[in-house]
């Protein structure tokens, strides 16, 4: 008799497909999260030390320029958060990855917090430098719109009871909102803005001196590690939360039958 491939034990799929099993994903998170927390703390400590003590002061702004080491990385990360959500949205709608909706749901509050941090640090930096807490120029307005969209997606997640339907609705909204990301990035080039033009990610390379650029990039790496640490921990929490919920529902069903 011919041995068909279906009777042989299948090897576990590798890569992202392999992580589709929540139990395997939880095992991976449990193994790597302590290391991630440690590395994040170390890079943050190193980055802050570099930023606060080693990097030079600006010849015009003095020590106030050091708000940049919080403001710029959180701005980059707020856009990366929406990018992560967009990829997760594609995972939900196109590839039907089981953990894609968990990734999308948990990335939203972290991205919203980072956007809020960006707006607040920018506002506090603007008061001494520009003389105003807020101005309606293209960059600030488009980041504020991003913050509103983050809050809208979080509201959408909480307004639909069935998480699978919420996942698909939020996925569509996330992909539509991704249009805002290039607008934010190029807003300082397309319009005359009070916010300064692109200094790092631009054609022709960065225009910042290395003594300031290196600590900035270290802080960016620290913030990125922070995002993924928080994201993985939040995904673990969400998976456990859903398991608790289904156990409670089974319990209620059993009690009803008795």
């Amino acid at each position: 008799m011919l041995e068909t491939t279906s009777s042989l034990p299948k090897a576990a799929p590798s890569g992202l497909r392999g992580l589709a099993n929540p139990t395997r994903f939880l095992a991976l998170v449990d193994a790597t999260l302590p290391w991630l927390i440690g590395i994040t703390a170390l890079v943050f400590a190193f980055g802050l030390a570099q930023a606060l003590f080693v990097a030079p002061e600006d010849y015009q702004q003095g020590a106030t320029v050091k708000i940049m080491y919080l403001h710029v990385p959180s701005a980059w990360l707020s856009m990366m958060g929406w990018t992560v959500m967009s990829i997760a949205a594609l995972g939900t709608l196109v590839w039907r990855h089981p953990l894609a909706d968990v990734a999308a749901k948990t990335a939203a509050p972290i991205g919203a917090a980072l956007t809020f941090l960006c707006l607040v640090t920018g506002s506090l930096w603007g008061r001494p430098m520009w003389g105003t807490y807020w101005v309606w120029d293209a960059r600030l307005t488009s980041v504020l719109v991003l913050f509103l969209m983050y809050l809208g997606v979080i509201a959408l997640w909480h307004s639909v009871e069935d998480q699978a339907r919420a996942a698909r609705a939020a996925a569509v909204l996330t992909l539509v909102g991704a249009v805002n990301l290039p607008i934010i990035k190029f807003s300082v080039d397309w319009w005359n803005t009070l916010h300064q033009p692109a200094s790092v990610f631009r054609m022709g390379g960065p225009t910042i001196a290395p003594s300031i650029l290196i600590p900035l990039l270290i802080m960016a790496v620290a913030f990125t590690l922070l995002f993924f640490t928080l994201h993985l921990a939040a995904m673990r929490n969400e998976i456990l939360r859903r398991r608790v919920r289904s156990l409670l529902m089974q319990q209620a069903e059993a009690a009803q039958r008795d």
Partner: protein
Amino acid sequence: MTGLGALLLRDIRLALRLGGGGWIGVLFFLIIITLIPFAVGPDLALLRRLGPAFLWIGALLASLLTLDRLFAADHDDGSLDIILMAPAPLEIVIVIKALAHFLVNGLPLVVAAPVLGLLLNIEPPGMAAVTLTLMVGTPALTLIGLVGAALAVTLRRGGILVAVLILPLTIPVLIFGVTASNAAMSGPVPFGTPFTILCALSLASLAIGPFAAAAALRNRE
């Protein structure tokens, strides 16, 4: 009479007969424009300067509130499932529904705008500019609002959440509509520059909106 033509006529007839038809949007528009001088004060120069902005915000809110039930009403009586089984591509069906909505709810707003501009003491070049920008911009508002209307089918409660989700996406249309109107009234910028960008935004919403709304409708269960 093709199926799409029949759908268009059905939607136009329903929109005209239910809930006050096209007039309710105009009435809401009128109420907002009436409220504003009570809040801002009767200073005619100030109203003239801010007039295009108020007209645009009024038109935006009026079209958002009428869009809410676009798909949800069909979902409630079961006709959405039949419409979705049509042989035509879902995106085209959605564009037909958006066209019906624009003809019944959007066009009256555009026609009412110059009349309401008189209440705000806007001079004729400004009124012509506002009307023209609204003519081009209300299709964009309809098409972007379609996405929210399709999501409202999933939501059951809809309403204010749909407005929260859709208003950030309509901000560029609002910005360029008001900029074009102000350019025609006073500014050094020629009217054509923001106006062409507004046209581009409308065409982009025609390209993106139906696809996003179709995705939302296909995933509504």
